[in-house]
């Protein structure tokens, strides 16, 4: 079999004069996507009913950042996955018309959001609201100071239990909070933006845990625990601050109180989970000393990593109806023979690095990213710019389990490793550490 690795790269670099501190600006905005009631919700195959109400509004929260020459917007959505590619391109087009050069579309992976394929009108409204929020955030940009901090909290566990024979079994809920699951990453990455007068403008929180405290019996829209996390942070810091949740790589990480039945006070448990990470974040965020960046610079690079299907597509197609009972949307995704996976690397002010994957990466990828990233402040965003199912590590794919060797995995084994490597290579390129020309050196 011939395999092709093409680094199809879109480098978004602009010739750049040295920017001063006052050139680093940020603006925030949020919008209620206001999805229609009475449509199917997303996240659980086992959910029977349609949406009946709103527990907390389904939002888009946008932060726009500018170095004086280039503006980028990070749109975080309370959805199970980002919009499909046509909508993402539409949003980017609208943003460019408003002077925003690039938009990163990220979703929290809440399992209590709408299924937009069931409502074209709802989708159209949501896309417009996101476009408005991006424009609004960009129009409100103001000089900011930036600072970072790191915290730890345990709200989740690794839901794949590896038996002594090497096979994985699923272990969805861990109410007794057995702490010996592995691997788990309790790290909270916190980034604080302050206005020049010191008032906090935005707090970004990067953490990896499925937002699934609310289960399939819940028929009210909710962002799940990230919503309460944001409330906790905003109330704790007071004033006009907006909190953002950036989902990491929780492809194998569930909250201890997974799918809590409504009859067991699921809403309160969801809030408690959000408060726990919110309070852990506040302890860090309060201590962060923000400062103007030494030099403002926004750089990014998106590489497209080609991947073929993990499965024997012909065999699988013939068996979709009986052996695998899948809805048509999931079935169609599963039998794609090849996919282009966008991987974006963002470098802020030469100091903060972000990489994204378009699906559900297992937690080891974010741990490896931080370990291999050459900067002290490195953040990992899953569920970004696309949705191509789970990205298990090679070893996890071998051991099996949900997302590792189930129908929720679409791309070939090794795709996650390749994306991670390419995210890292892009970062080194943005840092100017990989020249496109060979160095001169004495031959052996």
């Amino acid at each position, binding site marked *: *079999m*011939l*395999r*092709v*690795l*093409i*680094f199809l*790269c879109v480098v978004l670099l602009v010739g750049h004069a040295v920017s001063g501190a006052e050139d680093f600006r940020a603006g925030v905005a949020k919008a209620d996507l206001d999805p229609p009631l009475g449509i199917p919700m997303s996240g659980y195959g086992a959910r029977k009913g349609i949406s009946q109400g709103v527990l907390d509004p389904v939002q888009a929260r946008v932060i726009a950042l500018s170095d004086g020459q280039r503006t980028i917007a990070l749109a975080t959505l309370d959805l199970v996955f980002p919009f499909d590619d046509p909508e993402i391109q539409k949003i980017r087009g609208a943003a460019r018309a408003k002077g925003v050069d690039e938009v990163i579309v990220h979703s929290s992976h809440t399992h209590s959001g709408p299924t937009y394929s069931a409502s074209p009108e709802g989708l159209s409204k949501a896309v417009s609201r996101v476009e408005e929020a991006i424009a609004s955030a960009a129009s409100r940009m103001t000089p900011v100071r930036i600072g970072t901090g790191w915290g730890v909290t345990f709200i989740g566990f690794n839901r794949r239990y590896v038996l002594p024979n090497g096979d994985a079994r*699923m272990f969805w809920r861990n109410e007794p909070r057995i702490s010996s699951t592995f691997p788990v990453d309790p790290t909270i990455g916190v980034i604080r933006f302050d206005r020049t007068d010191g008032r906090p403008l935005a707090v970004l929180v990067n953490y990896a845990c499925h937002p699934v405290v609310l289960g399939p019996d819940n028929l009210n829209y909710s962002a799940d625990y990230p919503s309460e996390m944001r409330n906790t942070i905003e109330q704790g810091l007071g004033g006009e601050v907006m909190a953002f949740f950036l989902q990491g790589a929780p492809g194998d990480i569930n909250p201890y109180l997974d799918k809590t039945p409504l009859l067991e006070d699921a809403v309160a448990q969801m809030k408690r989970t959000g408060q726990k990470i919110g309070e852990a974040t506040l302890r860090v965020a309060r201590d962060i000393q923000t400062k103007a960046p030494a030099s403002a610079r926004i750089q990014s690079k998106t590489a497209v990593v080609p991947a073929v299907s993990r*499965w*024997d597509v012909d*065999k*699988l197609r013939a*068996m979709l109806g009986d*052996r*695998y009972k899948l809805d048509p949307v999931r079935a169609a995704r*599963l039998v794609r023979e090849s996919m282009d996976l966008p991987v974006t690397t963002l470098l802020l002010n030469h100091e903060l690095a972000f990489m994204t994957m378009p699906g559900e990466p297992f937690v080891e990828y974010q741990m490896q990213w931080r370990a*291999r990233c*050459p900067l002290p402040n490195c953040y990992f965003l899953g569920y970004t710019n696309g949705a191509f199912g789970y990205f298990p590590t*090679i*070893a996890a*794919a*071998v051991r*099996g*389990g*949900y997302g590792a*060797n*189930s*129908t*929720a*995995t679409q791309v*070939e*084994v*090794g795709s996650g*490793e*390749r994306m991670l*490597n*390419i995210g*890292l*290579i892009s970062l*080194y390129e943005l840092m100017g*550490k*990989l*020249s*496109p*020309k*060979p*160095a*001169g*050196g*004495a*031959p*052996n």
Partner: protein
Amino acid sequence: MRPLALLLLLFPTLPAAETGLRAGVSRIDITPPVGHPMGGYGNRKTGATGTHDPLYATVLVLDSGETSIALVTCDLRSFVSTRVGELAREKYGVGATVISVSHTHSGPLTWELRSPWYTEAEDKMIAAIGEARRAMFPAELAFASGQVYLGFNRRKVTNGRATMWWRNAEKLPSHPVDPTVNTLTVRDASGKTRAVLVNYACHPSVLGPDNLEYSADYPGAMKRYVESQASGAVCLFIQGGAGDINPYRDKQPVKLDGFGAVNEMGAELGKQVMVTVARAKPVPAAPLKVSSEIVKVSNRWHPEQEIPIGLTAGAMGEGICFMAVPGEPFVELQMTFREKAECGAAMLFGYSYSAGGGWAGYLPTIIGAVEGGYGADYNTNVAVGAGEMLIDRGVAHLFKLRGLLKDLPDSRF
């Protein structure tokens, strides 16, 4: 204690016939004529003036019934040929052929030149495969690994930038190095050792550009030592991920007893091989499985160009795994491979051509490419990340060969 280990203790030597594995070995002299241009150093002015020790192709064929493989291990710097594998299949029914070179820097230029000798060498390799094939015997394998420090990492990294230090006669510590010596012993039905395959990572560049005589460098000396100690056995050497590993006494001038240094290093490695072989454990009998693919990576300096790289992976149950890549992997890649393959014994065969495509040249790690240095940010052509990707592809092949990665999803989830 796991059941498998218990079984091994109870039946330390399974009768060879029950494994279904057959092996054959052969050796042929492939030394080029005097005057042939040499490879390894750019600054040699003339062709070879003579032969210090002959260059051989030493062949091990393994056949477990459905699958067979020929490991053609050569005292050469590099070698690219699809013809050898094609004819081995046609004439002798060999499923897969790996042409592995030790990377001696005192051999001829090969595929770059395509001299008449090159075609003769191909013919001789094919003949040697035929000879090994005709002399097959029921066999069992045993494996052990040991450690010996004979090389150092020639890239000195300071403040994130590498500078080269080619020689380290003082044996100062360096990083990373992998002292692992893998030994695979082939025994016949009577329990007699017929072949010892040695896999170790270090450039065979004890002899420098001043040497104009053909020599297999330290791997040749190691083979002579092992064969003198294990009479009747043939020793084969397969180079590992030596892309950044030099011998302590690199380029020891001939006038300063360069050949003595070669013999000393060969004997040191050979002694460790013998100690290791003495405690080798039988590899549980399992069918040999092999798969290959051509991975295309882009050219690092001309991204619009593709470089096809053929890789071959092979496994015998969970006991033995290997993968072959036709280039010079940095040593961390062999360490990563061993960790990721999750095999009883995982060996990276560097400098090993097998499945079509070209010679990949240096395969640095990503961080190596960033730090720079020889083979890292010059004298390398593959896209950054190609080394990691090849290893991951090989690991995935090995899991598939072992039946641990299915082509359909598990329907329980």
